[in-house]
């Protein structure tokens, strides 16, 4: 109550509006600070860490970053999608199998086709959630097995191929040695799709149903269609993540990687509330880089690589616990 009142009274003056922006984005700013700090630590641990390593980092996190973006959108709308990892595997193997030994022009059609396939998968997920009225978690958990099974039907063992131009898109740097192409691709794809949605009525509805479904419904938001739309956008980005997997490895692997879990860890660290209605896409993307750098640093300081799975799990749990505690304190205040 007091927070709203003070925000309203502070609605004049440039300095105050900057302060307000900072207040609203404090979590993201903190993440940027943490990222810079980690970069410095990494540089101290390994003095050779430079442009080439940053480039490799950007390529390696591209699939996870797209998975985190996909998860963030559906979670902000009040759902959760546990089938992102298997959807990525399904789209990745489909792309790899279709592209193998085909011309460059055909590969363009495959890219478009696979992105549309992601849209279709997301539509199926969303429609099932809305029509069956079963909790999102159950539907997407069950669908994760459906998509994983479908990926195995496409191809049984890792295989397929990727067009050379597609691999070149994320390889190397652009303008300066310090700007990896993979990062530019990530920001372009996310920006071109998400910013128009955010500026449209759909963006408002997405946050509205995530924040309070009943209030959104009473204000005339079509809750069902909006929810399906959220899953569709999530499916699109999951397919983009699947393509990124094929691009970076050159093949398709039918067994899903740990992307669902990593995406959840990244969005929670990125300031997206699992309860919905709160957060953005900048935080999760920075969070993905932070989590990757932590893993790099752990190898630099000589932690047993077998423990890295355990550390990943501990980070996930720790981050969610921390998020839960801060959310609880925020509510009490």
């Amino acid at each position, binding site marked *: 109550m007091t927070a709203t009142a003070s925000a309203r009274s502070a609605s004049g003056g440039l300095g105050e509006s900057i302060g307000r922006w900072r207040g609203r984005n404090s979590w993201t700013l903190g993440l940027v600070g943490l990222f810079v700090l980690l970069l410095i630590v990494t540089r101290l641990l390994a003095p050779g860490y430079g442009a080439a390593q940053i480039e490799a980092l950007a390529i390696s996190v591209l699939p996870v970053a797209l998975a985190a973006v996909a998860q963030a959108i559906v979670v902000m709308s009040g759902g959760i999608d546990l089938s992102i990892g298997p959807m990525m595997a399904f789209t990745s193997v489909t792309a790899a199998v279709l592209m193998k030994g085909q011309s460059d022009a055909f590969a363009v059609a495959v890219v478009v086709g696979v992105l549309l396939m992601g849209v279709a998968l997301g539509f199926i997920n969303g429609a099932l959630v809305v029509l069956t009225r079963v909790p999102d*978690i159950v539907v997407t958990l069950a669908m994760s*097995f459906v998509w994983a099974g479908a990926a195995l039907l496409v191809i049984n063992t890792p295989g397929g191929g990727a067009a050379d131009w597609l691999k070149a898109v994320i390889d190397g740097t652009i303008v300066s040695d310090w700007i990896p192409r993979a990062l530019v691709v990530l920001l372009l794809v996310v920006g071109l799709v998400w910013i128009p949605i955010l500026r449209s009525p759909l963006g408002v509805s997405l946050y509205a149903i995530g924040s309070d479904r009943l209030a959104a419904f009473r204000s005339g938001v079509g809750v069902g269609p909006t929810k399906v739309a959220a899953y569709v956008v999530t499916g699109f980005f999951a397919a983009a993540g699947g393509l990124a997997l094929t691009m970076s490895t050159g093949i398709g692997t039918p067994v899903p990687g740990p992307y669902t879990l990593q995406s959840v860890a990244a969005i929670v660290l990125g300031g997206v509330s699992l309860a919905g209605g709160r957060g953005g896409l900048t935080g999760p993307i920075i969070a993905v880089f932070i989590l990757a750098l932590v893993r790099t640093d752990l190898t630099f300081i000589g932690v047993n690589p077998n423990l*890295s*799975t355990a550390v990943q*799990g501990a980070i996930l749990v720790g981050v969610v616990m921390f998020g839960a505690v801060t959310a609880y304190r925020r509510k009490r205040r």
Partner: protein
Amino acid sequence: MSDARVAGTRSQWLTVTGWRRLLRDQPLIPLTALLAFLILLLELTKPGIVSPNWVAVTLRAAVPLAILAACQTLTMLTGGIDLSVGIVASMAAYVAATQSTGQGDAMAIVIALLAAALVGLANGVGVGVFRVHPLIMTLGISLVVLGLLNVYQLAMVRAGVVLPEVIVTIGAGTTLGVLPNNLLVFIPLALLIIVGLRRSGFGRLLFAVGDNPIAARLSGVRAWQVLIVLYVLSAVLAGLAGFLVAGLTKTASLGLVQQSVLPSVAAAVIGGTSIMGGRGGFGGTIVGALILTVLTTLLTVLQMPEAVRQILFGGIIVAVAAAYARVTGES
């Protein structure tokens, strides 16, 4: 008077509402019918397959799944889920098998169950005290346990993997040639769970916390205590199931029970336990586990690949959960 009641019952049977009420109040009846239908289908697909021996094999395979599904049933009653059962079960079997040469069989089993309880404690503290979503908590903890087990595996590479004799006898053996020994563990356990859920205070607390957490809190229930005990119990049950699977397959490895996690959720959902909490029971879950076991046999007989089995299981969960959501009117 009695005529009127009979007429009333009949009309109830013939209407859609009657069927809905049947599925909602007595899910065991349609579930058993479905089980019978699947067995009939199996017999028609491969005449002569259904025999006393087949029943024994099916029961023996269904028991570990039913115990894992008990973990899901209990946690789902509070609105939770335990996805760490796969790794906890594998861990218990692996720890027992690696400790048995050094510590003796009984001690090895105790150590394994203590390790399982410890994992359950971590889950319970995360869910109960820190309010982490059970799904995230148990998935994260499974990653932690898997990583630690990888390190443990490297450290124990010299100590052979020898399953305690009693685990093999109970897990794989049969009495009089037909009665699986693992029923000796399962029947008392199942009775304890079914009666405990209905009659014991702890059972009622599970329903209370799951049905209406706020009302439960206002009535003086300390939900965090209930949840910690619940997740420890779930992990110990998973450990027992791990022993039975290891005994049945006579192996112990880190991926031993991992593929039973989704079927265990499926069995509980099919059995009529709601993931939203507050509704369900173990009786339906047992039938659910039997249905899935018979279905697996049917798919094997039809020579379906593993991928199709996964797709079908996923589809069945959505379909059954949707049917329950329809009849109970929850959203």
